[in-house]
């Protein structure tokens, strides 16, 4: 049975159809990247999977169960949300933020137990930010904040992570470091769905890419087959070229400054022709 299945999932907001008849099926351990222009329904899709929005039609099935029938606390133990980095927050310590992930594991009026604290510390260590535990969340860098939110998702004990543009707002170095972390998460068996604006990030981390446009899935398939100059042109209406720079590593280069003559770039890699 598929871990996650979306059946004819639709969502309308103020009579505007945001998402229309989305069908999708995911296996455990898959890493899926959602690509699509702004307003294509990526965030809506993620929120529907998290149960934060109610579908106007269709359903989200987790282990075959409609998530509307799963109690919120139980759902939180299965699916974790890694939101975009907060701009505003109280200056909680990083370890306090991670500890929040233990909330669905304890009784309403209880306090966090020693075990909860151990699990939170362990998550921080796994992501290599154990040294930040006592620092205020608002004073660490954007990349470290994003890692703290991932640590919280791990502490939550969920096997599936839903990430909304995890590299958004991070500087170049932190984007790359975060992608590395995502890749190693994927290797440890987590199922990850993340939205992104960078086809490069999708190709670097995801096994599978889903392209969305105007509330529908346009393409769905293995990352290397789905991200092509043709599909990117269809999606964003821009010209890009794809270069294979090493075994299995491909990058997108905007065609803006390349002109028609690509010979001068021959030294950098092998040009993947548009299909």
């Amino acid at each position, binding site marked *: 049975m598929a871990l996650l299945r979306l059946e004819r999932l639709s969502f309308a907001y103020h009579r505007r159809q945001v998402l229309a008849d989305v069908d999708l099926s995911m296996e455990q351990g898959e890493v899926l990247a959602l690509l699509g222009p702004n307003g294509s329904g990526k965030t809506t899709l993620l*929120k529907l999977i*998290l*149960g*934060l929005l109610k579908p106007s039609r269709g359903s989200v099935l987790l282990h075959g169960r409609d998530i509307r029938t799963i109690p*919120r*606390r*139980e*759902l*939180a*133990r299965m*699916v*974790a*949300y890694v*939101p975009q980095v*907060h701009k*505003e*927050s*109280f*200056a*909680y*310590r990083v370890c*306090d*933020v991670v500890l*929040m*992930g233990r*909330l*669905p594991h304890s009784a*309403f*009026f209880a*306090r*966090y137990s020693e075990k909860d604290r151990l699990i939170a510390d362990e998550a921080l260590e796994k992501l290599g930010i154990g040294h930040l535990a006592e620092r*205020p969340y*608002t004073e660490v860098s954007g990349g470290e904040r994003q890692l703290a939110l991932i640590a919280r998702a791990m502490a*939550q004990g969920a096997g599936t992570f839903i990430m909304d543009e995890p590299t958004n707002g991070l500087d170049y170095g932190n984007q790359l470091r975060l992608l590395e972390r995502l890749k190693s998460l994927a290797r440890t068996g987590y199922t990850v769905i993340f939205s992104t604006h960078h086809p490069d990030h999708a190709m670097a981390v995801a096994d599978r890419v889903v392209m969305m446009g105007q509330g529908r899935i346009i393409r769905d398939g293995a990352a290397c087959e789905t991200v092509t100059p043709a599909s990117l042109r269809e999606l964003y209406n821009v010209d890009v070229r794809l270069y294979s720079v090493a075994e299995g590593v491909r990058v997108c280069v905007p065609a803006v400054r390349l002109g028609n003559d690509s010979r001068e770039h021959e030294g950098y890699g092998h040009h993947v022709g548009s299909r």
Partner: protein
Amino acid sequence: MKILPISLLSLLLAATALVSLSLGKYPLAPGEVAGFLGHRIFGWGTFDAERLQLLENLVMEIRLPRIMAAALIGSALAVSGAAYQALFVNPLVSPGILGVLAGASLGAALGLVFLKTWYGVQAATFLGGFAAVGLAIGIARLCRVNGTVMLVLGGIISGAFFSALVAIVKYVSDPYNQLPAIVYWLMGNMSMADRGMTFKAGIPILVGIACLMLMARHLNVLSMGDEEARALGVNVEAVRLTVIVCATLISTLTVVLAGIIGWVGLIIPHITRMITGPDNETLLPATALAGASYLLLVDDISRLAFTFEIPIGIVTALIGIPFFVLVLKNARKGWL
């Protein structure tokens, strides 16, 4: 929960209470008061019978009820302020934000004009506070935006509405007896709190504070935003409503006890957050202790600074406002 700040603030509260019990028209030595309390509670030491009678009258009958009331009111205002601040993810809101104090003062004014009995006034004050919150939430719902900003705006509208109604009641009230009583109430006044009232209002205040402290973890999560809280398994609407009911209950009860005492709910959580950090598991108990100590000190000033007593609400405003400007100036980090 961090133990150190809590224990230090507990010591501060004990010391402040002892000093406050000693101060008055007939000053006592704090050592003697401590000895008397030890004798009264644990039977330690011996006292001269005449002196004992004097201390019994002064400390137990006259000063203690007022000091209990001041401590309860300070705690209630500080805890409700901290709870609202976490709920609205805004360190600049206070119990007044939902129109609670305005609604409670309308209730008090109506009670003073029409009901005239002590219990009637209390009940009306209580109902007024809840009516104001109801209106604030109603306005937020009406706009179909399920966010905290709309709720804050609803509170501001509700507060303005109830303040206008208070003005009407003042205008039509009897200017010789009722108007002074209403004005006196609105200024905030500790001399109204007697032992029976303190006891009756004190128990629900303590229950409300305890409930909020038990929900500290949920308050932390709620302050990260509704969607994150939901994704962490929190029933956001239910928790938010419970927090609002508890915080409103305890802040309305302070109006029942001593009229409108402003600014405590804003500055005390602020100062405490600077010491303990924003984690509500530590912040709520710490701010309860700090609020109690602060109001005891302010009450001492309002009792003793001049030959006549100044309404405590005026003193909290006079101290609170410049202090808050200083806090804002130093709060360069923006979010404390």
